[in-house]
C-alpha cells in the first residue's frame, strides 16, 4: 500500500512539473506582453525597458526557475497588467468561483440524478426521451449561447434577473444554470447508465422476487450503488468547474477565476495565466490522487494489481 501511494505521488509530481513547464512555454509562444502593454508603435527602447522591468529579458531557464521558486514559496509573482500580487488577485476571485461552482454543482446533481434515475426506470419512455434531449442540448449547446439566451429572456424580456455581476442570489441564477447544464447532462447520462447496470444485477432481481415494493428496490437497493461513480465524477467536476468557467464568467461578468484567466490571456499577463493554470491543475491532480488512494483503500484488488 505504501509503495502504491508513493508511486501515485511520484506520478502526480511529474504531472505537475510537466504542466508547469508546458504552460510556461505556451504562454511565451503567444508573443511579447511588453508590446501589448505599451501603446502601438512604442519605441524599441521603451519596449526593452518594460521587458527588463518585467523580467522578460532573462534567459528562459532563469525565468522558469523564478516561476517555480515563487510558486513553491507561495508568492505567485506580480501581474503585468494589474501590477498587483497574483496571489491577491487569485484569492479575491476564488470565493466567487467556489460559490458559482458549488451552486452549479448542486443544480447539476439536483437535475441530473433524479432525471437519470427516472430515465433508467422508464427506459424508452417519455422521461427517458426527454432526458436524452436534455442531455444532447446540454452537451452540445455552447455555454455562451445558453448564457446570452437566458439574459435575453430573463433580463431583457422579463426583467426578472440581473444581466451580470455578483452580489445577490439573483446574480447567481443564470450563470449557475448555464454552467450547471453541461454537467447536469453528464451526471444524468452516468446516473442512467449506472442505474441500468445496477437494476440488471442479480441482487436487485432477488429483491424484486422477494416482493419488495419497487420504490424500495430502486430507492434503497439500486440507487445507492448506482450513485458511487456519479459522486466520484461530481467531485472531479467541481474542481473543473472552479477553473474552467471562462466563457460563463465572461458572458455574465462574473468576477471569478475564469475571468481572471481570460484577462490574463488577453493581456499576455504571464504570471496570471501561469498561476491560474498551475493552481487549477494542482487541484485536479490532487483530487485524482486522493481518489486513487481512496479506491486502493476500499478495493484491495486495485492495490494488488498495481
Amino acid at each position, binding site marked *: 500500500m505504501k509503495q502504491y501511494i508513493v508511486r501515485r505521488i511520484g506520478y502526480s509530481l511529474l504531472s505537475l512539473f510537466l504542466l508547469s513547464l508546458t504552460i510556461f512555454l505556451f504562454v511565451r509562444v503567444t508573443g511579447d506582453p511588453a508590446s501589448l502593454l505599451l501603446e*502601438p508603435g*512604442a519605441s524599441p*527602447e521603451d519596449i526593452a525597458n518594460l521587458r527588463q522591468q518585467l523580467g522578460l529579458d532573462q534567459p528562459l531557464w532563469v525565468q522558469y526557475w523564478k516561476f517555480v521558486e515563487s510558486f513553491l514559496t507561495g508568492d505567485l509573482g506580480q501581474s503585468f497588467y*494589474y501590477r498587483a500580487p497574483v496571489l491577491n488577485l487569485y484569492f479575491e476571485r476564488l470565493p466567487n468561483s467556489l460559490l458559482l461552482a458549488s451552486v452549479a454543482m448542486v443544480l447539476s446533481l439536483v437535475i441530473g440524478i433524479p432525471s437519470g434515475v427516472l430515465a433508467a426506470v422508464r*427506459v424508452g419512455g417519455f422521461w427517458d426521451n426527454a432526458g436524452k434531449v436534455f442531455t444532447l442540448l446540454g452537451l452540445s449547446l455552447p455555454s455562451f449561447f445558453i448564457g446570452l439566451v437566458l439574459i435575453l429572456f430573463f433580463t431583457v424580456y422579463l426583467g426578472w434577473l440581473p444581466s451580470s455581476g455578483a452580489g445577490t442570489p*439573483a446574480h447567481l441564477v443564470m450563470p449557475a444554470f448555464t454552467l450547471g447544464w453541461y454537467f447536469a447532462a453528464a451526471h444524468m447520462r452516468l446516473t442512467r447508465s449506472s442505474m441500468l447496470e445496477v437494476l440488471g444485477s442479480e441482487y436487485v432481481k432477488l429483491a424484486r422476487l422477494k416482493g*419488495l415494493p419497487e420504490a424500495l428496490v430502486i430507492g434503497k437497493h439500486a440507487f445507492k450503488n448506482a450513485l458511487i461513480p456519479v459522486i466520484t465524477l461530481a467531485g472531479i467536476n467541481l474542481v473543473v468547474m472552479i477553473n474552467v468557467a471562462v466563457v460563463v464568467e465572461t*458572458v455574465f461578468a462574473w468576477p471569478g477565476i475564469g475571468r481572471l484567466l481570460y484577462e490574463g490571456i488577453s493581456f499576455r499577463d504571464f504570471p496570471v495565466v501561469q498561476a491560474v493554470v498551475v493552481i487549477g491543475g494542482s487541484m485536479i491532480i490532487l483530487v485524482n490522487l486522493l481518489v486513487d488512494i481512496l479506491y486502493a483503500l476500499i478495493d484491495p484488488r486495485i492495490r494488488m494489481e498495481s
Partner: protein
Amino acid sequence: MAKRIEGVAYAGREDDPTDGGPPSDLTRRGLLALSAFGIASLADRTAFADGAEGQLTWAVHVSLAPTWFDPAETPGIITPFMLLYALHDAVVKPMPGSNAQPCLAEAWKAAPDGLSYQFTLRKGAKFHNGEPVTAEDVKFSFERYRGTSAAMLKERVKTVEAPDAETVRFVLKEPWPDFLTFYSSATGAGWIVPKKYVEKVGDEGFKKAPVGAGPYKFISFTPGVELVFEAFEGYWRKPPTVKRLVLKVIPEEATRLAALKRGEVDIAYSIRGELAEELRHTPGLTLKSVVLQAPFWIYFADQWDAKSPWHDQRVREAVRYAIDYKAISDALTLGYSPITNSMIPNGFEFYWKPPEAVYDAKKAKELLAAAGLGRGFNGGDYYCDASYSNVAEAVLNYLQEVGIKIQLRPLERAAFYSGYSQKKMKNLIQGASGAFGNAATRIAAFVAKGGAYCYGNYPDIDELFAKQESELDVAKRTEILHRIQQLVHEKSMYAPIWQLAFLNGVGKRVGESGFGLVKGNAYSAPYEDVTIRK
C-alpha cells in the same frame, strides 16, 4: 387506465399502466422544484430598474488597468483618459470648445522667440487631500513622466522652472511649435499629481490609492470588476452634480446592452453593428456616437518599389475609386463614421479638407486598364488588426469586383502594430491611429521620412515638413502643412476609409452624458458636466 399492482416492477415494461404520463406526485414535485428554484422570489425588479440616487453607472468594455490612475504612465491611446478626466486635472487640456483650455493654469503665454512657455497656476485649485496645487507639483509631474513621447519631451525641454508657487516656466532647447500640443493633449505630462503624497507612498502606493486634483476622488477599485469615484466638492471648476460614479467592467457587448436595457447601468460603451441597431430602436435608450480622432486607411507599403504594381499611382488611385466607403460605414457603424477622405482627423489643428471621396468602380477599372492591369492582378497581402477584420473584408470585396485579388492577413493587435512599425509588412496595410496630437504629429509618424510607420518617403514632402518644424508663424505653418496633405492626397499615398465613430448607449436617467463635449474624446468628459435627468 389499468391499476398498478403493488410489488410489480413495471419499469420499462409494455404493460406499465402509467406509461406516457407522469404520476401525479411527480407533478407536485415538479412544481415544488420550480418554487425552490425561486425565480419569482429572487427577482427584485424595483431594485434594478432604478439606479441609486445621485449615482450613475457605466458599463465599460475594457478591463481597467491601475497604470491608468497615474498620469506619469499614460500610453498613447485614448482609453486612460476615461479615468484621467475623472480623477485628475491638467495644466492645460482639451475641454468643450477648446483643444487647449487652461485648467489648473489660469493663463499661459509663449515667449515670442518660442523658447519658453509660462503658466500661471489657478488660485484655490486643490488636490483631493486638501493640499494646494503648486508649481512644484507641476514640475514634479513633468519630471516623473515616463509615458508616451516622454523621451521626446525630455529631450526638447531644457529646464522646468518654478520661480514661485504659482508660476511654472518650461524652457526649450530650441523653438518647438508643438510643445503645447504634446504637453496638453498628446501626453499625460501636463496632468498633475501631488508631489508630497507621491513621494510618501511611492509609485506603486499611488496606483493603489491615487490622489488627484480632478472632479472625482478615488474610492475603491476591484480589478476587473468595478471602479468607484465620489464627487470632489472642492473642485475649482464646479462641484459635480453626480455624486458617485461607478464604472463596471462588462466585457461582453450583448451583456452590456442587456444591462442598459434593464437599467442596471446608465451608460454602456461600445455597442456595435446589429446591437447598435437594436439599441437605436429601444424606447427610452439613446444611441450616442462619438467620432474619434481615429481615421482608418489603406497604406500602400510597396509604392516605392518600382517592381510592384503599387508603384504606379494610377493603381493606387484605382483602389480609392473602387471602394464604396459610405456603404461600409452604413453597414458597420450605422453610417456614423464620416468619410473624410483624409488620414488626418478632421478635428486636428492644421487639418486640410480634401475633396470628397468618390465611389466609381468604372473609373477604377479604367485606371487599372491605363496602367496595363485591365485584366486584374494579384495585389498580394492585406494586413489588418484582427478586431477590424470586418472592415477589411468589406474592402476586399470591393477590390475583388474591379479585379484586384488580395489575401487577407488579420493579426492580433500587438503583433499587427509591431509588424507595421518594424516595416515587416508589404503590399497593403489597413492602419489606423487614435493618438492625440495635430496634423504635424500625424504626418511625422505616417508620412515624413523617419516616421515610425513610414515605409518610404517623398523628398518634396520631407522638405516641406522640415520647413514647418521651426515655423512659429501659425498662418505660414498652416499653409505648409496643408500643402503636405494635398501632396499626400495627390500622390495617393493612402486610401483613407473612414474616421471611426464609437457607438454608445445612454439610458433614460442620464441628462448630459458627456459624449462629444470634448472633441475627439471617445468617453464621457468632462465628468463635472455630466448630469442626471430630473
